[in-house]
């Protein structure tokens, strides 16, 4: 073949193949004032996804001020600078800018999505929201009332009932057991002064992570960081939250709820995210309950017995605790057989461990599905943000496959022996199950 033609054909083919083989290029940006952001520059779509996190979330609410972080975060987008709440929302809507700030357990996170053509406005309003929110009385009262309503809607759902009681048992007096939306009393008692103080304490430059993906260059982004976050205080003021100490004995709790079905949640302690065995735990979880229709629990309870529409397990890594958590729902008369089968499958896994082909299949999935976690600018930004807040390192994506592949069978067995003991499982149910005994039974949960 003619060399020149070959050259051009290669040129055409090259970007596609290179892309398929590698992970996106991450740039570390430093602003003139020293603020940092991680950036994936990509101009395929005329969009920018901008995400950020401030360490310290719902966990920082004191017991008598539950609901504070959620309320403060929601109020940031209800008017700022010279814009009252309507003017602020009008301006965002007119430019199709989506801006949300939420309080999670460990941190306040924000997501902004904008068309590249409106980026100047988007960054202006983001800066205003974070550095000069108005916290107006009318918005304050309105959002409080909205949270009261949300609490009622939430607390009537069986999935929430089981999660709330499970966390109450596991976390006990730890702040993780608190209600993000507050209690009826704590919400009522919150003042605007509380909101302002919390804002000043939590939003600072020393607990900030920033992730940006889309049609923006490093040169554009660096000075913007100072415009957006530069006016925040240098240091945050946060309470020191201790690690969770798990209760000595697992529990079995029930919230009574009439209906045909019982919602079952179960959990055990899990190793922390930075543990070198984390990927081995991911593999073990995938085999037992995380792997969708191929997982052992799903196969046994759904495919072989028709006992449920679904059962799954997952690993949750929070700052102060890690959980192996799972859920299943089944008819009240099927709860006993479902629990027995779950116990049998789990015990067998604990006793005999995972087989080599299962481990390989788990590795195939975990490595092969990496592209699926990066399919939009939002998803990529969320990944960049998680890599920073969970301290996974800049090379996390690039090295992910080799790390998962490097896990050995011995490592998986060791993790199963240590962390997958069925005796460690606590259960929390909501419903009216037949033939099951409990340590604690709640007739109802407060709104």
């Amino acid at each position: 073949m003619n060399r020149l033609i070959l050259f051009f054909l290669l040129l055409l083919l090259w970007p596609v193949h290179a892309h398929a083989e590698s992970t996106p290029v991450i740039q570390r940006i430093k602003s003139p004032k020293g603020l940092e952001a991680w950036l994936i520059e990509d101009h395929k779509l005329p969009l920018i996804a901008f995400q950020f996190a401030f360490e310290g979330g719902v966990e920082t609410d004191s017991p008598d001020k539950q609901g504070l972080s959620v309320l403060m975060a929601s109020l940031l987008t209800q008017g700022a600078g010279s814009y009252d709440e309507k003017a602020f929302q009008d301006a965002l809507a007119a430019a199709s800018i989506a801006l949300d700030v939420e309080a999670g357990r460990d941190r306040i996170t924000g997501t902004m999505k904008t068309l590249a053509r409106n980026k100047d406005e988007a960054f202006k309003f983001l800066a205003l929201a974070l550095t000069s929110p108005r916290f107006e009385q009318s918005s304050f009262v309105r959002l409080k009332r909205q949270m009261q309503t949300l609490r009622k809607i939430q607390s009537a759902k069986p999935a929430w009932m089981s999660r709330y009681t499970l966390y109450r048992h596991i976390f006990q007096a730890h702040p993780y057991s608190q209600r993000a939306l507050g209690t009826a009393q704590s919400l009522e008692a919150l003042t605007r002064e509380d909101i302002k103080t919390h804002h000043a304490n939590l939003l600072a430059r020393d607990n900030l992570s920033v992730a940006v993906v889309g049609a923006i260059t490093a040169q554009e982004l660096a000075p913007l960081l100072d415009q957006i976050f530069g006016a925040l205080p240098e240091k945050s003021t946060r309470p020191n939250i201790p690690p969770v100490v798990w209760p000595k004995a697992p529990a079995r709790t029930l919230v009574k709820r009439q209906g045909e079905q019982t919602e079952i949640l179960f959990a055990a302690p899990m190793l922390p995210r930075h543990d070198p065995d984390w990927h081995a735990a991911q593999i073990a979880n995938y085999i037992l309950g995380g792997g969708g229709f191929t997982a052992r629990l799903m196969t046994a309870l759904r495919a072989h017995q028709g006992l449920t529409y679904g059962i799954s397990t997952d690993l949750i890594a929070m700052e102060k605790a890690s959980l192996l958590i799972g859920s299943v729902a089944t008819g009240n008369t099927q709860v006993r057989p479902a629990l027995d089968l779950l116990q049998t499958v789990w015990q067998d896994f604990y006793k005999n461990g995972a087989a080599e082909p299962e481990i390989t299949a788990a590795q195939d999935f975990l490595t092969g599905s990496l592209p699926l976690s990066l399919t939009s600018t939002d998803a990529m930004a969320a990944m960049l943000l998680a890599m920073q807040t969970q301290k996974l390192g800049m090379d996390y994506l690039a090295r992910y496959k080799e790390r998962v592949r490097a896990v050995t069978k011995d490592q998986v067995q060791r993790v199963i022996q240590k962390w997958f003991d069925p005796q460690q499982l606590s259960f929390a149910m909501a419903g009216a199950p037949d033939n099951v005994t409990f340590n604690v039974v709640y007739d109802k949960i407060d709104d």
Partner: protein
Amino acid sequence: MKRRLLAFIFLLTLLLPCPLKAAVFYPQTKTLDNELQIVVVENHLSPAAAFMLFYKVGAADDPKGQTGLAHFLEHMMFKGTRDVPKGAFSAKIAALGGQENAYTTKDYTAYHTSLAAERLEDIFALEADRMKNLLLDPQETLRERDVVLNERKERTDNSPQGIFAEKMNEALYGAHPYAAPIIGKKQDIQNFTPQIVRDFYERHYAPSRAILVVSGAVQPQEIFALAQKYFGEISAPSFAAAPLPVWTREKGTIAVEHKDERVKQAFFVRRWVLPEIKVQSREALAFDVLAELLAGGEVGLAFRHFVLDQNSATSLSASADTLTRGPVSFVLSATPAPDHDVRDLERDVMRFLQELAQKGLTARTVVEAKQRMKDSAIFARDRLMAPAQILGATLAAGYDLSFIEDWPEHIDTVTTKDVHQALQTLLHAPYQARGILEGGA
């Protein structure tokens, strides 16, 4: 020769990223001899692809007394073929790092797999295989009935909101097939036999009733070639879908007041069916604009009035269903703020709509609502599966691809008068259901 090729390549690279007019997804399409339609949307943001196979059969096609059959068949499609035994389908896709599932709507059934684009070919083989070779083992059929009954409990029987939604649907649609729950009635699910499922499968699953949509880091010509290779030989007999029955419900607003002591927060829903509105028309799209104008984001007129100004509602939403085989419909719902009565709120919201219709709409609010809608079309491209979902749903509902591609232009043609007319239509619409879900026995 050399030079001309070079020029040609340059021309191509100039043309590719530079479309002539602003459309939405820029799909490419081809139809095989056996009438399978293929649609490809390129999106090279990540090296992944979404593969979706739509069958133009949904819950509205369930035979009488067999509600839930289309959905039940969707479940059975994962239960094995001669060559790919039970469980092997999911295991193969998992080994490829893919994620698969399916869903059934009133109008169609969709199977979807997302995975690394370079591994796409295996999915063609698996989907083509189960289009013609489904086993439908008797034992598996019986067991799957239990799974679906459990699914029904989870979604409906154990949920006051689920039960309420079923009642509202019945009240709204009467004898029309859209009245029946997609998942099916309990007694119908209990009576499914392998033969019932097989008849339905053979009647409806064929290339001529299917649409294959691939979205992601792919080249259209490669996808067309793979489709020809794996689906080209399938020539199962094809039946045209029976048209949906004509609208026969009696005129009137039917009330559904459902009490359930498990409910702690009341809300109301108002639903309209508009059989006289022509689908795909400007007057139909006016209802989409109306929904955005009333309740879009935090700036919709009704949202503003009740949530921000009056503080009598904590939420208010509205939407139109204009992408449908059957009649166009509209829904509005709101949750009262603490210390506000749900019936007072319902009355006030309806009164607000009446006053708005009398006062008229300003051109500015209509223009702003339309701008938000057009911008949303750009954001829709920033998703892997959404383009495939939207285009597949469009074709499955019997619309042309241009309905989506020209959507921003169509939205632009909707006038203030059209939106005002849509509001008037709602206020005088003969087919409505009003519902309240609240606590107490």
